[in-house]
């Protein structure tokens, strides 16, 4: 693979992220949150893509890694005096320590990765629907335990007063890190082996690829990225409940991935930016916006209806996602390219 070919998998998604952050700097303070949300969504969806896109196995469990990262980072960044007052049941280790911004993000990534590894160890033997349902069961257990076990978290109440350190720049940096990790992974030997198992499990096994081991690698790495994204998520909101990281987020992020095109990094980023942006736009439209001189004034709650309808509509039109699950490619001179979606640049090879 030529260097240009490798870079072209990284640059468009990264540019998209930078563009979103750049646009965000022009937004008013009230609207800036939408841009940060979009960037955090990108980080989560890229984490999800790292496993789902490369392995072809659908996972409903990745939000549990986001949840673990979010609660880990959130809980450890709240000052210990506050924790002793608000959350008296916590284990002493959790109650008496608190850490800064960057360590909490690293902790989130570590927690997500470790949890994913432990879960993946048995579960990665499964495939197809069984794998989907088993990962969903993991999400159910994570939510159930976080909701009820007050020694490790806030339980049914909201965890508040978390430092809101995920500004526009940090959100952009976080999204870029996630994209970078996913890019390096998909170029690596491991990424290619895993994609081989996606295309033809039998043939991959026949040449000596261990499906279980490759899936476990990807699952762990994507768990770490999702945990990290969870850290960004909690520092963006400043407050979190277990419901924030449960079914709705699971469906929304999966929809972003599939609408964008599950089998490419570009698809993951495009889907996240597009749906997140659309959601934000429609939400603001509920307060009334002016488009081309018309005042668009819609009832509260309409944005969800439009979002659902649009997602279904896009899938009917383009079942393999907006990008068709392909990266952008450079035009090739002299040989026919098989995997070329829409070559945009006419640069020299």
């Amino acid at each position, binding site marked *: 693979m030529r260097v240009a070919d490798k870079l072209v998998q990284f640059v468009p998604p990264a540019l998209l992220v930078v563009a979103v952050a750049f646009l965000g700097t022009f937004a008013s303070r009230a609207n800036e949150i939408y841009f940060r949300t979009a960037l955090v969504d990108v980080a989560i969806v890229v984490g999800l893509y790292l496993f*789902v896109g490369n*392995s*072809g*196995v*659908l996972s409903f469990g990745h939000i549990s890694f986001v949840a673990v990262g979010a609660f880990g980072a959130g809980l450890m960044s709240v000052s210990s005096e506050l924790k002793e007052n608000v959350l008296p049941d916590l284990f002493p280790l959790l109650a008496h320590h608190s850490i800064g911004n960057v360590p909490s993000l690293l902790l989130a990534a570590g927690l997500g990765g470790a949890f994913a590894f432990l879960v993946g160890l*048995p*579960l990665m*033997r*499964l*495939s*197809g*629907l*069984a794998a*989907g*349902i*088993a990962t*969903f*069961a*993991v999400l*159910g*257990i994570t*939510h*159930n*335990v976080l*909701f*009820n076990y007050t020694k490790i978290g806030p339980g049914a109440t909201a965890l508040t007063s978390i430092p809101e350190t995920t500004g526009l720049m940090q959100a952009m940096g976080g999204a870029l890190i996630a994209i970078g990790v996913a890019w390096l992974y998909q170029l690596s030997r491991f990424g290619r082996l895993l994609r081989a*198992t*996606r295309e033809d*499990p*039998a043939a991959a*096994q026949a040449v000596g690829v261990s*499906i279980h081991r490759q899936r476990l690698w990807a699952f762990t790495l994507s768990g770490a990225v999702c945990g990290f994204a969870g850290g960004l998520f909690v520092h963006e909101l400043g407050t979190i409940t277990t419901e924030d990281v449960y*079914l709705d987020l699971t*469906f929304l992020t*999966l*929809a972003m991935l*599939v*609408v964008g095109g*599950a089998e490419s990094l570009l698809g993951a980023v495009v889907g996240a930016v597009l749906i997140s942006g659309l959601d934000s736009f429609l939400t603001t439209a509920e307060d009334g916006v002016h488009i081309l001189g018309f005042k668009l004034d819609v*009832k*509260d*709650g*309409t944005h*969800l*209806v439009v*979002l*659902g*309808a649009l*997602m*279904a509509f896009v*899938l*009917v039109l383009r*079942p*393999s*996602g907006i990008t068709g699950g392909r990266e952008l490619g450079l035009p090739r001179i002299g040989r026919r390219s098989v995997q070329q979606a829409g070559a945009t640049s006419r640069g020299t090879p």
Partner: protein
Amino acid sequence: MVQTLINAVGLGSIYALMAVGIGLVFGVLRLVNFAYGQLIMAGAYAIALGSEHGWPEWASVLACFGVVIGLSLAMELTLFRPLRQASPATMLVATFAVAFLLQSIALLKFGSLVKSATIFPKLFDPVSHGRFETVRWITIVAIACAVVALLALTLMLDRTSIGLHMRAAASDFQTARILGVNANRVITLAVLLSGVLAATVSVILVVQNPFIEPRFALRDTIIVLVGVVVGGIDRLWTATLGGFAIGVASSVLTDQLSSQRSVYVDSFVFGLVILVLLLRPEGLFAPFRTRPVERA
């Protein structure tokens, strides 16, 4: 003990009905319909509106069946049909989108507050005031409904030619088409039947829990979907048994765990699910045989 068992079988029956509805569509379309719960929710709102406007009970029930079946067929025409060749992930996410859409419409139209519906209130009474205090008539009705529906379905699948077509389509859709099975007819019938079942479940659930909100039946649907896969989604009867088993298991667990632990009932159920999936990935009730290669 006997009461626990009857209640468990009651919940199992409701879940079995839902499992059949999901399994029928999966059989012919290879599509896990996540929006099934929202169909039930829509039916429940139909009943709630009926009782709000003081309609007679039969009219409310009729409205419920009309709404649910209409929505099922609309879903098949606008979504399942164009996506018939798409990947399973796309189809699943498309049903997410529909589920999301229906739920948002309910939220927009009726708000997040509960709406109460009164229908067949007599059925909610206990069977007797002596020994069977916690067993309600509706539980008996649910069990009876499940038995009747399953018998009718079995007869249809076994004894009629359209049933034969459906079984053929479920076991190998391409070959069945080549042999002259009308795909659209078979799929429409499966969707229709699954809608009828959803409407039935809707009525039963509303009698049991007359407080309707946009998330009505969502948790039940998720548990049934899990149960269907655990039982073995490839065959209708294993899927049904899976739904039944997970209903019985969650009902017994809720009853037997002490109140302090009962908040963790979901964890226990899901833990069991993972265990079963690891031991029998092709389904708990699937016949034993070796699978050649894994299919992703």
